[in-house]
């Protein structure tokens, strides 16, 4: 039930904040719905549903559905997400080839826990083939980064 309260609270806060924003956008221009009109209705709808669920779950006191997530499950998720975020930020600096290599190597070493040989060779293989396929063959204009300095 604690979970339902947190979720319900989240939706209520979010919809409240967004409804204020929508209102600021203007609910009507002349005799027509303004930019904020439909978002406002949506936020009200969300708030009502969230409130309804919250009240219901407090009244019924539903049992715990799943177990709380433990560290073993959350840790790889955090790593994967952190890896991707770093990739996104470094992409324009290091370029596609190197970033891909680093990302795949990171995943293989940290999450899959393979040895260095497998990690580095697989990462290199993936980076090179995808570079050849997307950059050279398809000319996808992926960022060159460091590669631009070398060539």
């Amino acid at each position, binding site marked *: 039930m604690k*979970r339902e309260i947190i*979720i319900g609270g989240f*939706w209520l806060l979010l919809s409240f904040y*967004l409804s204020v*924003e929508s209102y600021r*956008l*203007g609910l009507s*221009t*002349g*005799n*027509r*719905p*303004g*930019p*904020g009109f*439909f*978002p406002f209705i*949506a*936020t009200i*709808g*969300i708030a009502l*549903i*969230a409130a*309804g*669920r919250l009240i*219901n779950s407090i009244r019924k006191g539903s049992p715990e*559905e*799943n177990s709380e*997530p433990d560290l*073993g*499950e959350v840790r*790889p*998720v955090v790593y*994967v*997400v952190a890896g*991707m*975020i770093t*990739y*996104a*930020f470094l*992409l*324009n600096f290091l370029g596609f080839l190197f970033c*891909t290599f680093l*990302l*795949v190597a990171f*995943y*293989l070493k940290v*999450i*899959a826990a*393979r040895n260095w040989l497998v990690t580095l060779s*697989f990462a290199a293989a*993936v980076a090179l083939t*995808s570079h050849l396929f*997307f950059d050279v063959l*398809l*000319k*996808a*204009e*992926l960022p060159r980064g460091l590669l631009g300095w070398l060539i």
Partner: protein
Amino acid sequence: MDTLHLLAQGILTAASPLNLLYGFLGVLLGTLVGVLPGLGPAGAIALLLPLALHAPPLAYLIMLFGITYGAQYGGSTTSILVNIPGEASSVITCIDGHAMARQGRAGPALGIAAFGSFIGGTLAIFGVAYLAPALAEFGLHFGPPEYAGLMLFGLTALVYLAHGPMDKALLMALFGSLLASVGLDPVTGQQRFTFDILVLRDGVGLTPVVIGLFGVSEVLVNLRARAGEVFQKTIERLLPTLQDWKDSALPITRGTILGFFLGAIPGLNVVVATFAAYAVEKKISRHPERFGRGAIEGVAAPETANNAASCSGWIPLLSLGLPTGSVTSLIFGALLIHGLAPGPLFIKNSPEIFWGVLGSMIIGNVLLIILNLPLIGLWIKVLRVPYFFLFPLILLFGIIGAYTTSGNTGDVVIMIIFGVVGYLMKRFAYEPTPMVLGLVIGPLLETAIRRSMIMSKGHIGIFFQRPIAAFFMGAALLMLLSPLLARRRLGHEIIEKLGEQ
């Protein structure tokens, strides 16, 4: 008949060695692009544009068209096998398709998907050949009020898509439409919810959201569960059973018809056709509770519909010269590059192109089914690769797909954010599908209503005074009320529903 004769000639033209080669490349590339999450036909066509300046016109066009419907074939593969849609139009296939895969029935699912795609695509081509001009004319009657009615009717499909509690699904749909309003307001030019972040000015794109919500989140959820495991240990059978064929026959028929007509409406995303087809199947079914647990109709109908819709989606462009979406705009550009002016006289002035393209689509569909069926065995083998090697690739392709949407890392960040959101949703049992529905239909409904109000200077009557609009409004209301009307004891029904929740 004359049309048949022209079509036959078109097939012959398309069967020339050069055109066949380009056609084959097109469908192959299309399948590949469809399988890779994120990279869509629009992206692939955009990448091939420089080639347009050098390639022979008909062959080049055949290739481009091949990419578009090839992608509809490929998109279902990853949806079924790993619950990650290759295209937004394959989102719905994930539901029952992946459930079937979990039951060891990936083969039949893929088979029926391929076969349905073939039927849908081929029949749609005949539909285009015979009906294109008439349908195009009809499509012109759809102004903003008609769209509003149609979109409202489409939203009622929501009722039949949710598995879990209705209120959660509605919440997701509202959230989706809220998300879609981020960015530049299409009517007034004001920026909504952009918080001065530049990349948000274009809004939250459908592609990065879908890749994140379905693809990335699926990987995140599976990280521990699949640790080192092979995805699937046994595949029971590779081909659909007789019962499967029997069950799929009508859904395929319905999917074709629904997909064909919905696709012909200018501006309607193929995604909507898939949602509609699924909703219809679920509503008509005698055992709707099977849906979501591996009902083959839930694969057959949407997959057929998306191929039919992507075919008929060409009608506005080919008959009137009006591009209605990103892919059609690209093809429009490609036609212009070759000095072919698509327009009302296109079919008359360039018959060899029109019929050649149609003929190539028939050949293309045949090529695709020949290509895809044996590939099923291959895909299943790919799944035997340990997940730890597979998931970096899945994520990488997702990143590339997101990046190439607009050449910017912002879309990658959006994808990651929605990956986390999707992960949380999966943990807390919120469904992503209604959110996609809201994301796609929400803005369409909103702009349609707002434009209608501009047209009518604020009078709501416009929705009921115009025949087509009134029809859809009425139909929407009917859909909303029908479950209530079906029960005799109305009050009892409502109390029941409240008690459930």
